[in-house]
């Protein structure tokens, strides 16, 4: 054969093969390209989701609603932002956006002390009948008539003026037309038994799961609650501890030192103020405006302080002002009172009696009465102010009471901050017990600051929880080991908990789709990033790209939120004599890190000092008393980021704690503790030491009231040492409504006016009198 024949045949054979190869390679390249494209889009959509969450919680948060609802709402909105963003980027528009959620098996929100998962699950379909009873659609509901049941309109129908609920009785047939005809259904077409309910498959935000772990030690169960930083809570039968685990020694240098006595004084906290508008009563036509100091209580709600009336108030979502901290007989169902008493001074190491007397709210009784008195039993004196300069801060006290009883307890305070309570006598007829829970944290005004208490907390924790009864922490190295072990345990607990729940979600998800999906394993760097701050992990699976299906996840961490303070929110300074006079960022190598003098302060504290010569110095607000020391920014880390070198030979850190010198880590926790407890100690609340209840007796009249009965007494919790606050309700007598004058006795006695101060005399009763 001629050469041309061969060539032509060769070409005819090769061309299709080459075409097919080219097509296949093209497809591979295309798959990789689309995968990178989707990765980028997923990353962008997740970042937008975090941005939306930050916007919602830091800038647009409403301070009025309960904290849990607010969080869920913010999270659901940011999930919406995610689906919107992802569908816009993929070019999916209109109603097809909801289909994007079919490809999202789970979204995990990692918060400070727990996490949320947004995942599809089976949710029963419900209706509500006229009585508000929730009923479920019965899975096997049948229709016994021949009519077409597609046109059932609602489950409650009005038939001849009567409302029939739960059982639709009329059905409209489109083919037959005319009026709806009666139909009999099986009786349990709607059921209240959720096991028989018909379920739909949709995405829901599951309930909050905290990072907890339960341990059993000697037949006692303890629950440990972890958080993203070192704050730990332990609950058990006989123990309730919470606090920061701290292993440093330099918290004391946070105050202003008196150079003569050497005493360190804790600084004042700054006051937060806000300009608000409210109405005193809902019928008021106009709003009252004012600028008030506010604090956040333990639920995160805002409480404003009115300095004229010396009372705290909150503003409801309707703008109505609601004063707190007064006990009114006609308002309280039972005497549930929650008082936050701060800075009560207890004698150290001595036994004392804490008398708490309760009477019930009985409409026929005279009044309710709550007394707090602290007696120093060993001295026999009444004065509980006999201290040695040690302040015990009572974190919270919650108690409730039902029935008439009087309980006296003897509290023995130990120097490690816990107490032992013994009931001395109780009156029969008591039907329920009082729960009193108090957390004592000893704050020593001396040099050691918070050190003593935190070490004791760790000692207790270690002994009871880790089961190491002989652990005697005396050296810093031992503390550091404990620190490390507990950190590692905490991280394992958090990661295991999240993984377990994720596996369940993805198993649910793959049971509902045609292909089996498996959970992608998050690498250690991913977990390190995720647990360093509030973050979100999104999974995106199932889209067909080229030769395979897409399956990937994305982790985005928030940098700007108001729930978590990370190590980058502080500046670190060296307070020893060999200081270089500069403030540094976390982990900078140019600090004198071998000595234990690194202290951290929040960035807000660094203000520009006056011009010292030609330069502006950033001076730390809490200096050590001498005016000439001011801190400059470190050239290597703060001023010029290029030259930042991390500390060499990092000596601490496992898993998710950023590897760094241990002194830096302990400085950071010292700053966190200091900020938390200083705020609490030095706000206006700390000036109370007790609440004296004063009974205002209406004498021969009665107080104006919206209730059916006429109260003859009115109780106000007055603060010891402050001015009296009189009731705002008028007294009715002989048809007149007046503000009476208050005397210490029914006849005679002394008048108590605005200028008198509340004294510690136990219960006081003041009687009303008015001029005729």
């Amino acid at each position, binding site marked *: 054969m*001629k050469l*041309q024949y061969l060539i032509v045949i060769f*070409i005819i054979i090769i061309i299709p093969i080459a075409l097919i190869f080219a097509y296949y390679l093209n497809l591979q390249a295309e798959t990789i390209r689309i995968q990178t494209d989707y990765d980028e889009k997923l990353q962008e959509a997740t970042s937008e989701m975090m941005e939306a969450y930050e916007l919602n919680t830091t800038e647009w948060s*409403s301070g009025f609603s309960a904290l849990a609802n607010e969080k869920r709402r913010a999270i659901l909105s*940011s999930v*919406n932002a*995610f689906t919107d963003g992802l569908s816009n*980027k993929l070019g999916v528009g209109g109603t097809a956006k909801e289909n994007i959620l079919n490809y999202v098996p789970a979204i995990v929100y990692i918060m400070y002390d727990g996490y949320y998962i947004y995942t599809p699950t089976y949710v029963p379909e419900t209706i509500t009948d006229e009585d508000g009873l929730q009923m479920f659609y019965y899975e096997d509901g049948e229709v016994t008539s021949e009519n077409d049941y597609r046109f059932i309109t609602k489950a409650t129908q009005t038939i001849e003026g009567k409302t029939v609920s739960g059982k639709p009785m009329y059905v409209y047939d489109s083919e037959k037309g005319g009026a709806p005809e009666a139909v009999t259904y099986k009786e349990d077409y709607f059921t209240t038994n959720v096991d028989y309910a018909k379920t739909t498959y949709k995405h829901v935000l599951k309930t909050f799961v905290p990072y907890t772990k339960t341990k059993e030690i000697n037949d006692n169960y303890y629950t440990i609650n972890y958080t993203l930083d070192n704050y730990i809570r332990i609950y058990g039968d006989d123990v309730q501890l919470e606090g920061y685990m701290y292993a440093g020694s330099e918290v004391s240098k946070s105050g202003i030192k008196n150079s003569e006595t050497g005493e360190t004084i804790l600084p004042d906290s700054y006051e937060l103020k806000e300009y608000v508008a409210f109405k005193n009563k809902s019928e008021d036509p106009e709003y009252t405006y004012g600028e008030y100091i506010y604090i956040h209580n333990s639920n995160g709600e805002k409480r404003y302080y009115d300095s004229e009336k010396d009372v705290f108030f909150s503003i409801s979502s309707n703008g109505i002002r609601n004063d707190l901290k007064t006990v009114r007989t006609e308002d309280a169902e039972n005497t549930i009172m929650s008082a936050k008493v701060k800075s009560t001074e207890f004698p150290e190491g001595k036994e004392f009696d804490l008398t708490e007397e309760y009477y019930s709210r009985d409409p026929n009784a005279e009044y309710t009465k709550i007394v707090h008195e602290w007696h120093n039993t060993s001295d026999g004196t009444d004065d509980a102010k006999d201290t040695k300069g040690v302040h015990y801060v009572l974190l919270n006290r919650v108690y409730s009471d039902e029935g008439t009883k009087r309980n006296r307890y003897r509290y023995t305070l130990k120097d490690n901050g816990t107490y032992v309570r013994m009931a001395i006598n109780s009156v029969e007829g008591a039907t329920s017990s009082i729960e009193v829970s108090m957390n004592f944290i000893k704050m020593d005004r001396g040099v050691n600051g918070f050190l003593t208490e935190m070490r004791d907390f760790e000692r207790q924790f270690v002994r009871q929880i880790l089961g190491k009864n002989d652990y005697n922490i005396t050296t810093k190295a031992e503390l550091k080991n404990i620190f490390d072990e507990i950190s590692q345990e905490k991280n394992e607990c958090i990661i295991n908990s999240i993984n377990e729940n994720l596996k369940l979600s993805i198993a649910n998800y793959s049971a509902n789709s045609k292909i089996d999906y498996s959970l992608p394993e998050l690498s250690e760097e991913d977990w390190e990033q995720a647990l360093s701050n509030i973050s979100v992990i999104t999974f995106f699976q199932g889209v067909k790209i080229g030769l395979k299906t897409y399956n990937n996840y994305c982790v985005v961490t928030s940098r700007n939120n108001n729930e978590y303070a990370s190590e980058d929110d502080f500046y670190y300074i060296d307070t020893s004599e060999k200081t270089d006079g500069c403030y540094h960022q976390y982990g900078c190598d140019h600090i004198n890190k071998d000595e234990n003098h690194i202290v951290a302060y929040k960035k807000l504290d660094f203000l520009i000092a006056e011009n010292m010569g030609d330069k502006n110095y950033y001076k730390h607000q809490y200096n050590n008393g001498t005016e000439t020391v001011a801190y400059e920014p470190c050239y290597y880390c703060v001023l010029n980021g290029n030259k930042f070198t991390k500390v060499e030979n990092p000596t601490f850190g496992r898993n998710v704690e950023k590897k760094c010198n241990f002194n830096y880590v302990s400085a950071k926790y010292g700053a966190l503790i200091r900020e938390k407890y200083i705020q609490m100690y030095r706000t206006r609340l700390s000036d109370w030491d007790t609440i004296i209840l004063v009974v205002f007796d209406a004498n021969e009249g009665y107080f104006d009231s919206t209730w059916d009965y006429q109260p003859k007494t009115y109780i106000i919790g007055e603060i010891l040492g402050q001015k009296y606050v009189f009731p705002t309700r008028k007294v009715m007598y002989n048809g007149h409504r007046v503000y009476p004058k208050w005397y210490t006795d029914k006849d005679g006695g002394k008048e108590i006016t605005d200028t008198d101060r509340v004294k510690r005399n136990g219960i006081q009763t003041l009687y009303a009198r008015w001029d005729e």
Partner: protein
Amino acid sequence: MSDTLITVIAIFLAAVLMFIFPLMTVSNTQDEISQVAVQSIVAEFVNNAASKGKITTSDYEAFTTKLYATGNTYDIQLEHKIMTTNPNKGEGNKAGESLYYSEFTSEIEQALGETGEYKLKKGDYIIATVKNTNTTIATQLKNFLYSIVGKDTYTIAASSSALVVNAGY
């Protein structure tokens, strides 16, 4: 006779191999490059607008110039999803939860023509979609083998969106 037939086939194959195939390959590659470039141009425009908080005339003109520099004509569609701040819809407003209404290309271009700027606010979305309207060389070559008919056929398309975090005023 068979000699001639083979020769004709050989010439035909040679023509296809030496002219048509390279042309098709190169124009396909050209289309893919345009696609990547258009994708990044649109993403840059949208992210720029979202971080600045407004669309200015110069931005928009630079955007269109870059698009046309790829050698094709495009149909640009912008959508601005505005978050409503209706206080009757509950307390506060959340990004992603509230109702959105949209303004489209013609209104945006009109505002750009009048004032030179189109302002965006926080929580809004800005979406840009770009499709080509001419027939590229690769498409013409493919039409020899098979043709795709229809009004909205395109080969190069890109779409991008962003959430606005800074208001432009």
